[in-house]
Every structure is written in structure tokens, then in C-alpha cells.
């Protein structure tokens, strides 16, 4: 569904993303990990077509992000780092506007807005002006916006930032329930979240891919080194693997 090959983004001498390649199959949830400044957001922005890569290519559903930009945009729901909300609009007006530019037909628009508002729990404050909402509420409006028009691919940049523990669990459940039908790339700093929701983990460190495997596979690869007697050691936690890979 998503095919990233040899993606490079450089700012003068700094290579923010350095030769990143990976594939995401249809219906998969990919956990995108890495320390701050590893290039997660930059990679996601290149996948959505906001940022042009220095070299390399991205294909979504078989369409090149730059040559067939419109086809790709129709299939992607994107939640950037900062939720792209207009602080002077009400939640309802905002969602209606996004539904309109995403091409939801007039007759279905109301129903579609209500559907995403209910799934993301925005329906309680749908009449309020976004500027007066809390950070977590804005985050949920951003998530609701990404879900509009039911896109095949969801790119979520730290979707649970600013949410309270109960809401984090809700969003996690929501993302899990979207698996299968939707292809999701999820970036986060919260490692248990990856354990709970993602089938596969992609780890970046200073712009390079340092791990691309299932969680079990990662534990297997890194367990051997953990013991001295040559046998299988205790399965390391994702934290341990993360620290080991990113500190190098």
C-alpha cells in the first residue's frame, strides 16, 4: 500500500532523512519510533506530499506522491504534529469544511461529520469554537479531520499527545479497530502504545532505519546478545531495544 524507496531529505549539509526504504502492506499498522529529531515527522510529511524529498520516491496505493498527487491525496488522512485546526471556527464548521474539500457529497456531509465526531468523542463539544478547546480536545478534532471521508491510508503523527489516560486508551482502541481495512503509520514516543497497537515497528535514528521488524522478531534478534551462556535470554522489552538501537 505504501512504498518508500531510498528517501532522502537534506537541508544543506544536514541529512534529516538518509536513504529510508520500507513497505507497508494493506491493513497493516506500522509503529514509527525514534528519538526526537530522528526524521519521523519529516518522513511522514514526505509521504503525504507536504514536503518534497531531495531524492527517492514514495508510492501510495501504486501512485507516485508527486506525479499523481491528487490520487494520493484522495486516499490519505493525515494528522500532523500540530493539529491543523482553524481556531476561530467551531468544530462543526471546521469538520464540514474539511469534508467539503475532501469531496464528501453534500447529502452525506452531515452524516460523515457526525460519524467521525462520535468515533473520536468530539460530539460533546462540536458546537464550541476550537480556540477555546483544550489541547487534548483539539488533538481529537485533528484526528476526526483525518478520518473524514474514510481514507484508505492514515498517517498519524503522535495522535495521543495531550490526551488523558482514559482518552489514550480510547484512541488506541479506535486505531486498533481501524486495522485491516485501513493502512496506518503511527508515530509515537510512547513505547507501550506501539506494543498495544502495532504489528510492525520501524525505528529511525539520525535519519536512518535501524530496525524494521515485527515486535516478536525484534525481541528474537536482540535476545541472543543479552545472555552470556549462548542460550536464549529473557525477551528484552521494547524500551531496552529502543535504547540499544538509538544510542549507537
Amino acid at each position, binding site marked *: 500500500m505504501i512504498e518508500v524507496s531510498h528517501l532522502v531529505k537534506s537541508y544543506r549539509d544536514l541529512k534529516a532523512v538518509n536513504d529510508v526504504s520500507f513497505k507497508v502492506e494493506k491493513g497493516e499498522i506500522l509503529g514509527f519510533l525514534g528519538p526526537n529529531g530522528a526524521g519521523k515527522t519529516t518522513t511522514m510529511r514526505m509521504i503525504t506530499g507536504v514536503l518534497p524529498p531531495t531524492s527517492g520516491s514514495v508510492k501510495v496505493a501504486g501512485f507516485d506522491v508527486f506525479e499523481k498527487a491528487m490520487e494520493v491525496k484522495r486516499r490519505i488522512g493525515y494528522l500532523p504534529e500540530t493539529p491543523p485546526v482553524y481556531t*476561530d471556527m467551531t468544530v462543526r464548521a471546521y469538520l464540514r469544511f474539511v469534508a467539503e*474539500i*475532501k469531496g464528501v457529497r453534500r447529502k452525506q456531509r452531515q452524516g460523515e461529520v457526525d460519524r467521525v465526531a462520535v468515533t473520536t468523542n468530539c460530539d460533546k463539544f462540536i458546537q464550541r469554537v476550537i480556540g477555546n478547546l483544550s489541547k487534548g480536545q483539539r488533538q481529537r478534532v485533528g484526528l476526526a479531520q483525518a478520518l473524514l471521508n474514510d481514507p484508505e491510508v492514515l498517517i498519524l503523527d503522535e495522535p495521543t499527545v495531550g490526551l488523558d489516560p482514559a482518552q489514550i486508551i480510547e484512541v488506541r482502541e479506535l486505531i486498533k479497530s481501524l486495522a485491516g481495512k485501513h493502512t496506518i503509520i503511527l508515530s509515537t514516543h510512547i513505547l507501550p502504545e506501539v506494543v498495544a497497537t502495532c504489528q510492525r515497528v520501524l525505528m529511525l535514528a539520525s535519519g536512518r532505519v535501524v530496525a524494521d521488524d515485527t515486535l516478536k522478531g525484534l525481541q528474537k534478534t536482540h535476545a541472543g546478545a543479552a545472555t552470556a551462556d549462548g542460550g536464549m535470554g529473557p525477551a528484552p522489552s521494547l524500551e531496552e531495544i529502543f535504547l540499544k538501537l538509538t544510542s549507537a
Partner: protein
Amino acid sequence: MKNAIAIAKKELNIYFATPIAYVMFTLFVVIGSYFFLRLLGAYEQASLQFMRFNQPEAANRLNFQDVIFRNLFGNLGVILVFIIPFLTMRLVAEEKRQKTIELLYTTPVTPSQIVWGKYLASLVILTCALLLTVTYPALVQLVAKDANGVEWRSVGLGYLGLFLMGAAYMAIGLFISSLTESQVVAALITFVVLLMTWIIGWSSSESEGWMREFVTYLAAVSHLDSFGKGTLDLKDVVYFLSIITLGLFATNRAVESHRWS
């Protein structure tokens, strides 16, 4: 086109959800009314004088268009120079600062639809502002039953001139707003540029020959005045339309290139 209208609706929603449109309308009408009352007073004085000295010929030549409306349109044009920077400053700059431009970039909307949507909204705001001032000729018409009344054709042409000039200014403001993330910077630069289109006309009296004609052509005021006189000249229409085209084209380029920076 559908997307452009959706964006225009969103812009209008924000214009009227924030105080900016109301504040600018109020300023426009308050200052406009002050000028209107001054001109009305001047007309009154002139006609009294002609009556006192028994000059019916001069009194006959006195008409609303020349004494009141032609000057009024010039004055309203000056006020537009002051209020349009504040109406256009937000348009693209704020989207960049709040990162909402990323939303527009990741939805199936083209840069030209973004530009058209925003420009359409600004034209609606301009039309609203101008419609508020139609009260002036309407008031004159109401009280001037015995005189010849208002020449609505000339007044209409004056409004067409004001609209075209406002539309050209909006295009300039939109372009400058697309160059920066700061609303204040956008407003300031727009104001300076719009002011230049007026004060460049002053130097026309100091130059001669083709230079003089060139400077006069560049100045917006001479084109607006031509409409105010009640004439429709192709060269004035072309002047404003070319500014609009240039402004929108440049904005389109700026919006398109923003993501490459």
C-alpha cells in the same frame, strides 16, 4: 470551482467570526461619512452663494456628481488604502503560521483553488464594504427631489471603479500575505505598496513628456478619477485587471513554491 467556493466560505466564516471585518466596515463607514458630510456642506455653501449673488447659470451647472460623488469616490479610495491591508494580511500568512496550510496541501485541493477561494472571499468583503456606502447617494436622492437628482449611471461607474481598484488592492495584499508568516509584516508591506500607488501620482507634475504620462498611468488615483467623472475607459479597466491578474498569478506561484522552501 467547488473547492474554491468551499475555501471562500471558510474564509468568510472566519472574517465574520473574528472582529476584523466588523472593525474595518465601521472604520470605512465612519471615515466615509465624515468625508460625505464635508462634501455635502461644500455643495450647500456653493449653491447658497450662487443664489445670493443671483447666478442661475452657475447654479444650474452645479451638480451632485462633480461636487460630491467624484470627490467622494476619491476619498473612499484613500480609505481603501488604509483598510485593505488589514483585510488581506491574514489570508495566507495565518495559514502558514498555524500550519493549517498542511491540511490544504494534503487534501485534494490545488494551489489555484486555494488562491481563488481566498480571493473570492476578499471580493465579497469588498462588496459588502462598498454596499454600505450606497447610503450616501441614496440619502442625496431622498432629499434632492426638486433638483436634478443623482446621476445613477455615473455613480454606478464610480462604484465600478472603486470595486476594480479595491479588487486590485486585494490581489496585491493577498500576494504579500502569501510571502510571510507574520500578519503584521504582511499588513505593513501591503500598506506601503498601496500607498505608493497613490503618491507616485504626485511626482507626475514634476516630470515631462513620456515620463509624465507613464507616471500618471502607474498611479491608481488617475484611473479611479476617470471612473468618478462618469466615463468608462478601456485603459482604466485594463490597468486594474492587469494588477489583479499579476497579483493572483504571483500568489499562485508563492503558494505552490511554499512547500519547496
